[in-house]
């Protein structure tokens, strides 16, 4: 690879440079049309008064940073942001802990036991979100759900007919369970792949030197898989900030939206729901900035691993 890179760098013929730009044109055009243009449009919208009146033909009015100011002073928005961050960090943390634990477990078990675990995780990973969300609603069903049935059998009688989704705290417990269930497989497989790269000799040497299994894990394994943990952890944070579908669909079942909105569903209801496109665009810019910053961190980590 290196040799090729050097050779190509040494003979950058003008023709191949032209050709490479031509090859990039379709992809760049489609990204500009479907993302670049809306992005520019969103910045414009965020600086305009664009509500229902404008939707019916009245020209939009320039209001400068009014939308942002209005959002920044809106206590409800801060509540939504706080809730989103708390949910994101809690679920990302939970996913990382469970995923890493499963990955470590995979290295300690026989091949015959590893297969079912792999298949089970793959199934959970592959399920379309809508199908998963629908099944989990059924599992948590107040009257005929298996989870309430099990809890009652275990002696928690207060769960007979308990509705999980009509109260904010238990709504988020269900949402966290669902999101964790679908996110753990990716973490487990990635970390497991990292763990299998750790040379066994290091552990043997550590064992000979008298280090306990726990110490060997923290002093040998963790530092070696740190890059994978960082990348996967960052991806979890980015992904758990955008849990629109999960929250939106569970809100269908619960009916309480005001107390369970996270940033994505908030923007949707403000924009598409109430037709407040100016305000919704301003709020979108906030979430865009946060994700782009996090993504740049991810790219830097990846670049260090890859040597881009």
């Amino acid at each position, binding site marked *: 690879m290196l040799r090729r890179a050097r050779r190509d760098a040494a003979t*950058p013929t003008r023709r191949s440079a032209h050709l490479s730009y031509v090859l990039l044109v379709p992809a760049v055009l*489609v990204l500009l049309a479907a993302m670049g243009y809306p992005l520019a449009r969103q910045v414009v919208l965020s600086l305009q008064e664009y509500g229902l009146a404008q939707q019916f033909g009245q020209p939009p009015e320039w209001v400068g940073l009014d939308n942002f100011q209005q959002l920044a002073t809106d206590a409800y928005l801060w509540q939504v942001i706080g809730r989103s961050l708390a949910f994101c960090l809690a679920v990302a943390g939970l996913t990382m802990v469970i995923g890493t634990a499963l990955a470590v477990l995979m290295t300690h078990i026989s091949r015959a036991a590893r297969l079912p675990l792999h298949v089970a995780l793959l199934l959970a990973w*592959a399920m379309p*979100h*809508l199908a998963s969300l629908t099944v989990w609603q059924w599992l948590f069903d107040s009257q005929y759900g298996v989870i309430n049935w099990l809890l009652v059998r275990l002696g928690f009688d207060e769960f007979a007919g308990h509705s999980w989704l009509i109260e904010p705290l238990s709504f988020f417990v269900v949402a966290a369970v669902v999101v964790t269930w679908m996110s753990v497989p990716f973490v487990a497989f990635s970390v497991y792949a990292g763990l299998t790269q750790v040379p*066994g000799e290091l552990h043997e040497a550590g064992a000979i030197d008298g280090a306990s299994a726990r110490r060997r894990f923290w002093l040998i394994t963790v530092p070696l898989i740190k890059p994978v943990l960082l990348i996967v952890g960052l991806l979890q944070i980015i992904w758990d900030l955008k849990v629109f579908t999960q929250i939106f669909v569970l809100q269908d079942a619960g009916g309480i939206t005001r107390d369970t909105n996270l940033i994505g569903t908030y923007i949707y209801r403000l924009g598409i729901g109430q037709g407040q496109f100016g305000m919704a665009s301003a709020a979108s810019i906030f979430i865009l900035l946060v994700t782009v910053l996090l993504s740049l961190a*991810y790219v830097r980590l990846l670049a260090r691993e890859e040597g881009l």
Partner: protein
Amino acid sequence: MTGLVTSTARRRSYSVLAVVLALLWAFPVYWMINSSLLPYNRIRGAEPTFWPLDGGFDAYGRAFDSGFFAALRVSAMVTAVTIGVALLFAFFAALAVSRFRFRGRTSFIITVLVVQMIPVEGLFISQYKMLEGWQLLNSVAGLSLLYIATVVPFTIWLLRGFIAGVPFELEEAALVDGCTRIQAFFRVTLPLLAPGLAASGVFGFVQAWNEFALALVVMSRPENRTLPLWLRTFTEANRADDWAGIMAGSVLIAVPVLIFFLFVQRRMASGLVTGAVKG
């Protein structure tokens, strides 16, 4: 690795734990299938029925009769357009990135990686306004355009790894043997890339088939629903009395994805973490 120093008894108890966890993790998927096969009186009994011994496929009939095929048609069209276009465009771009050095190459790769991370809710308001202006709301073309843009970045990244994995020397050897550059590409490189293209196609399929948020924004008319939107409406309509039908609908949506996913999961995982093959 650490397995070397795990005692047999310990290994056995860990294995048991792993199997228990596997059952726990797979349970929702099992429960979806089980519930879809149960008759009314079973699914709403005082005790849950854990085996669909006296089950049948009635619930699937009810799902089919509630507009499933109309939604399947829309989903199939959107998915086909997305895969076709995204694969072609991404392939060109990946070729440029991995076979040529040019000014702006690194910044292009970085842009692709960042764009891939943009959350739906960061742009869907203005994407809605844009499609409204272009008269593309409620159209396969409009939704496909948005899907292509979400699929292309990761596909470039994935294919870049595959293309870099095919030694350039092979193509050179074909040139020496008298092939033209184009012939060398089609006869030597392209066949070697087939697995990569297949993996990318499956990735596009899964994205377009499963996506919910953009479809919700773009396809507001009932007759233009994609499958996930259909499942949501179907669930709302039957939540009170037909969970078997709802589970049958979920199975119908999940099965194609589960089958395809099993083929390519390895690639997707390594593509995200390490960029498939170092290039």
